């Protein structure tokens, strides 16, 4: 170490936000149940960072969490945040109830690709349609991590999973297109390899009145990475592909496999097969928010109008 000179730290740097995470607050150290190399650690810390830096009032931003590996973000999320873990796929419906019972709150929903687009697809469509004021973060790791690597509605075409041992033969579903069609008013997609962009979008979503959907592409090293090669998304190049057996390689793959929205404009479906288009897809502040519309109905019903 010392040969390299004083420019390099000799000790592991301390993550400044650990003390604010729930596990860190309780035990004084990094505490997570994720596999080494999983993207959820990044998301958990980015969330805590946003919560701390923006000094969000925990009593205004309840955290409503679905079921998947990401449920364990509770240990990384800000210790002050009020959290509830709900059932598989039902978080958007719970958020609707919370919001309508107390319109001052702005729920933040954590949900996964299987949770939100598979079992909970219907609730997702309808919360977007209603434009209920809340922020939905969809963590897309292209696989069911929690249950051990089964294919998700988002699993890339031709990829392998434990329930598609030959290959995935279905079209994947696209959270952004679904949200666009369903009527959410702020829609963006980014990845854990772009943490600053994520924070930017997240902040924008928190300040937006209406349903915000941010899809975050994140690596599942243990199940998706170990079963697949990094030529996914580059099928047209006919490369042999390398194993994705470390977190770093998966992040590399995610970076390579994403394409900006303005570049994607010039590409056809074939070129975009299995690639992730990132960017902001809608920002519409004109559509009225659900609880505000309902408040008007209440006024009419009460005869105050």
């Amino acid at each position: 170490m010392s040969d390299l000179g004083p420019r390099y730290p000799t000790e592991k740097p301390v993550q400044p936000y650990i003390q604010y995470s729930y596990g860190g607050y309780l035990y004084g150290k990094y505490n997570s149940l994720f596999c080494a190399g999983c993207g959820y650690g990044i998301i958990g810390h980015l969330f805590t960072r946003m919560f701390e830096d923006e000094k969000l009032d925990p009593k205004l931003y309840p955290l409503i969490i679905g079921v998947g590996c990401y449920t364990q973000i509770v240990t990384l999320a800000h210790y002050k945040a009020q959290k509830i873990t709900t059932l598989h796929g039902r978080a958007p419906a719970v958020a609707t109830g919370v919001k309508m019972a107390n319109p001052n709150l702005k729920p933040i929903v954590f949900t996964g690709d299987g949770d939100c687009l598979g079992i909970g697809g219907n609730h997702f469509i309808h919360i977007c349609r209603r434009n209920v004021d809340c922020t939905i973060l969809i963590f897309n790791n292209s696989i069911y991590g929690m249950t051990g690597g089964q294919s998700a509605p988002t699993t890339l075409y031709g990829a392998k999973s434990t329930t598609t041992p030959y290959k995935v033969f279905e079209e994947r579903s696209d959270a952004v297109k679904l949200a666009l069609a369903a009527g959410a008013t702020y829609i963006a997609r980014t990845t854990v390899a772009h943490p600053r962009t994520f924070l930017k979008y997240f902040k924008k979503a928190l300040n937006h009145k209406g349903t915000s959907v941010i899809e975050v592409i994140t690596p599942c090293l243990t199940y998706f990475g170990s079963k697949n090669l990094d030529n996914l998304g580059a099928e047209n190049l006919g490369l042999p592909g390398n194993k994705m057996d470390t977190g770093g390689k998966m992040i590399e793959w995610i970076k390579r496999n994403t394409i900006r929205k303005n570049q994607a404009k010039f590409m056809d479906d074939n070129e975009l097969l299995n690639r992730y288009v990132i960017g902001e897809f809608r920002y519409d502040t004109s559509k009225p928010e659900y609880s505000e519309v309902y408040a008007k109905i209440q006024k009419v019903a009460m005869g105050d109008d």
Partner: protein
Amino acid sequence: MSDKDTKRYLPEGKYIMMGNVAMAEGALAAGLNFFGGYPITPSTEVIEHLAKRLPEVGGTCLQMEDELASINAVMGASLAGAKAMTATSGPGLSLMVETISMAANLEIPFVFCDVQRVGPGSHGPVTAPHHNDIGLVRFAGHGEFQVIALAPMNCQELFDLTITAFNFAETYRCPVFILSDAYLGHIHEPVYVPSKEEVIKRVIMRELPQDYSKIYSYKDNDTGAYVIPKPPIIGTDYYPPTALQLPHTTQGLPTSNILSFMEILIEKVKSNIDKISLTEEYRLEDADIVIIAYGLPVRASYRAVDEARDMGIKVGVFRLITVWPFPDEKVREVVENCKAIIIPELNYTGFIAEQVERVKKPETPMTKIPKVGVFHHPDDILNVIKEVSK
């Protein structure tokens, strides 16, 4: 007094109300602020009535995308401090059980109106009664917990017992079911609505407690009693520091002692069975023959008993208003010295007959009168009374 309060309580007096409407008005009187539902015959009038009435009192009534969404929104609303309810029938209930068990285990209170119709499936005589969900609600979902189920028998009780149901939900923090049925839901009967002051006196309001240190039910080690704190409210200081998740200690911290967690969920209700178990005795003083009934068949039973008494047969009715938890001790006492038991139920299985079987003496004969889709005529019961009294 604000305008919305005046609208919440109907002026004192007698009204002719449809059963489903009486239930909805009872809920409003009990302080309902949130209703999430999905239309299904024969419960639809509940959501239709509340869609008009709830906004008038500053509450929210949402038609959700399905029953799964309804019950989850109800759970979320209750968590955010609202008195919340949903109404459905058998097929909807089947979809909801996962969330019912989740809410029971998180001790989030809500009231659940089940207007029972002929099952199984989604076709057939859906406007006919069938007390088939009574078995399902007893253990409604995975995990272990104790529910409370009330069985009204007329529109007046649909109003009154809905208030009781909300009070039970607030007090015991468990799912409370009102077991109505297709006939009860749709008949029109006189309902006496007490004055606003009377109603308010009856209702337990949702409020924050004095002491924030205990959030979940626990067993007091000194007295051995089960203590049930007020339900937590998200967006206030009275909320567990961890996620609301399972299984948990009294402070909401994760625990591996699941056995004692299950014990608390069940015993917090069962240990209060004296207060929860509502029953009614009709001409039972010197009865040799005991009819045990709940819900709609009680009406026919009362009539049959009157007629049989005129003939000199000593028969009476023991009526269960609270069906679950089943009052073992009370029923055991009632059937101890009787010569015969008759159980008219609106189902084939005889869910209550099974329970009575458990507590009666083995030698006491028991006759079931099952009916499905049509209700008991008093003569159906009278004939059996005559038969067993021979």
